[in-house]
């Protein structure tokens, strides 16, 4: 499964990213993005019945495919996953946008916050409210980025990358306690903004 050349490339890219090379970051991002999309598509073919997917599993699979299972230490792994989390966010939001456009085209109004909450509570997969909630989350995250880049990055890692508190802490070079506090506060803040946004 591990493609040797790619493996070397991504490992050295990771080094470059750590040294602060912005072009390495964008290249790594592109690789992660393509790999995630590819895995997501394979999964969709394999299990077409599912509307949701396990982002954590996806990011991990992408990691294994790019690096092999033991090729990297915990540090590198966390750094890669943080990049993959951003890629994951773009993939999911892109998908939600397309889906939402199709719904709007069919004359459906965006869901209200109340509808979103009920949809989430009902277990059943009412897709539209969830899509709307994701798009609202994306908009709110952009706002959060203005106030605290760190919190926004934490949300990306935790929510879109399915990363643990520890992994997030390593990837962002902060303490786990900070991650915990920021994650809790960011959730409250985002929740409020999403509610205001959807009305």
């Amino acid at each position, binding site marked *: 499964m591990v493609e040797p050349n790619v493996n070397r490339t991504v490992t050295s890219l990771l080094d470059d990213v750590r040294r602060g090379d912005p072009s390495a970051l964008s290249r790594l991002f592109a690789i992660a993005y393509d790999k995630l999309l590819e895995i997501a598509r394979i999964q969709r073919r394999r299990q077409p019945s599912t*509307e949701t997917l396990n982002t954590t599993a996806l990011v991990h699979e992408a990691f294994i495919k790019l690096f092999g299972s033991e090729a990297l230490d915990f540090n590198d792994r966390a750094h890669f996953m943080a990049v993959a989390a951003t890629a994951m966010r773009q993939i999911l939001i892109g998908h939600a946008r397309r889906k939402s456009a199709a719904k709007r085209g069919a004359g459906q109004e965006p869901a209200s916050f109340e509808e979103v909450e009920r949809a989430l509570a009902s277990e059943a997969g009412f897709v539209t409210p969830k899509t709307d909630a994701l798009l609202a989350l994306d908009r709110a995250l952009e706002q959060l980025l203005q106030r605290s880049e760190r919190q926004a990055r934490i949300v990306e890692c935790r929510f879109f990358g399915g990363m643990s508190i520890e992994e997030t802490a390593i990837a962002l070079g902060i303490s786990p306690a900070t991650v915990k506090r920021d994650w*809790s506060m960011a959730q409250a803040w985002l929740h409020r903004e999403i509610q205001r946004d959807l009305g």
Partner: protein
Amino acid sequence: MTREPSFGPDEWSRLEALWETARGLPADQRDELFASHAVDGALRAELESLLDHARTAETFFDRLLTVVPQAGPTVPPDEPDAKAQDSAACRRDARTRPYADPMIGATVGHYQIVARLGHGGMGIVYRAVDLRLRRTVALKLLRAQTPDNLRAKDRLLVEARAAAALDHANICTIYEVGETGEHSTFVAMAFYPGETLDQVMRRGPLPLSIALDYATQIARGLGAAHERGIIHRDVKPANIIVTADGVVKLLDFGIARIPDVDVSREGVTPGTLAYMSPEQVTSRALDQRTDLWSLGVVLYEMCTGVRPFGGAHAGAILYAILHDSPAPVSTLRRDVPQRIESIIARLLAKDPRQRYCDAEQLIADLVAISDVPPHPKRNTDPEAAFEHIARAAGPNGNRATATREPAADVPKWRWLRHASWYGVALLALGALIVSWPGARQPTVSDRRIAAEDLTTQGKRDVLFRSESGRRQSLSLFRQAIAVDSTYAPAHASLAHILVLSADEAGGSRRKQLIEAEKAARTAIGLDSVLADAHAALGDVLLFDYQLARAEEQFKRAIDLNPNEPYVREFLVWLYIFMDRPRDALEQAERAAEDNPKSPTAIAEVARALLVNGRCSEALEHLGRLMYVQPPPARAAGIAAQCYARQRMWQKAIDELRPVAERNPLQVEPWLGFMLARAGQTESAQQTLKRLLERWRRGDGGAYAVAVVYAGFGEFDKATEWLDKSIDDRSLRYNIMEPAFEELRRDPRFDRVRNRLGIPKR
């Protein structure tokens, strides 16, 4: 979005600094904190507002996280009439929002409605919970009654009840058809997580291997219904569910067959019309071949992605069905082999007489193309099959990857042709999806529901099933384990069925028992207080002649659950084996007390009466079971023994003959025995020859041969073969039944008795 322009980076840092402490405090103790840190004005308002949101935010994100929509190609907007059973695929109707549906949360009968799944021609389908059995069901509520459809409802009930009797892996199981005062009629069906074929096909044509597999499964479901004289009449993709592990389920059996709501009379949508046969659209008499036409349309669409008879309006579709030949499949898709093309052409023959006569013929052709044996187990060593699954499901990533490659690239259907057994391949794939660390994991409850469902289906009447029925159960239990390997009852059931079908395993009986023991111990390991798990182990030990240890397990099972079905029936066998006829009768009577209507319990009372020498009472009991023709093999076998005891050999032969064909392995030896006794030496010799031949081929046990030799009174040979039958584990407890009485009195039998550890009375 910035609502508080005065709120700068400093304020944000102060919020962060205060966050942890403030969150930890109850609301009424925060004032102190705010005062001591000089938090007021906008900052205080902001902090209070965020704290207020913090309470619900975490749940909100947890839930949102579990429902992140799947990335990938855009799915086209759903048609409003989509009829989905999958909660995940559940769609919001543009007009009526499901959560505004007053039925959500309502109780109908003993079902509580949870969510709306979709709506079809006759009513709305909900996901509901069966409050009694604590399982998820799909509940169809029929439209409110008007005088017009009252008659329709009556017919519906008749039809749905007929359909409820259909017990087949490819037919949606109907649990109950009922009525409630307020909500009129409902149908409770099995809930299958998955999506309708029509949703599957919206993503385009299917890989040929998959299309053939689905068509074969649909044909199997239809075949089972046709055998019972039930025609579906509304076979279409929206009525076909594909579960998450690729099992096809036909929905709405019989429900279509109500003239008053007949599709041809009202509201025919193109989605329905397009699948109707020429005889159906012209309202001529219908037989099973109408379903085969519809299946042809579905197969065509699966292969090409388009319907063979299309048109902008109903009239055009009608005309096309009656007069047009569809474009050859190969013009739309190059990789379709000629043989698929001819199957489709034959299904879509305008004249029903030129179609296949029945589903069986079609299945044979479909199977021939895919190189798939018609019965999933026919040419497979179950051991190998199991290893295959185990390997795929195993923790070793590399191995899983090796199997995974072809799976990820399904269109190369050659891979399937190379698989020794197609069913195994599918199961392995299922197991793989579950085990592969990167795959989207179905939720635990999804898998558990599916495993429960498969196990329940497999267990239905399992003890009275014929050989092919047992094979079906076996594969259902294996699927259940592949879906959820931690579901103990599936392992226990697997152990039982492996023991019960040990005779069909021919030469690998012992291997099968080993596997059964493994399954039983796995079940106990997963749930040590599961009565059925201990019963299963007892069952294995009984057939491995470890009689005392078997008794321990059965008793443990009864301690754990005095009502566990079948345990006392196993005890009857055990006590007969141990030559304790009175204990056997006691257990049989208690089993029948617990389950007065259970046919197996009734049969075991008869058997126990038989070994206690009370033959006429036994026959009286059996009379309650013999009203069906042919009668259950087990009942016929006991009756034959009763007659044998009274030396009425011909009557015994008459009992056995009708059931011998369907259960050759169990019945034929005894038929040979009776023939020998009756002096029909030539037929008996032929039977003996056949059984010897079977034994040489490794398909039959030594016990079968011993039984016929005993019939001939050749005790030397009989005991010699009984010796062998202990070695190959084919000897059965019925060695202690009356037919062998003479042999048992012979000193040559002592050796057998000693080997089995049965004390001499």
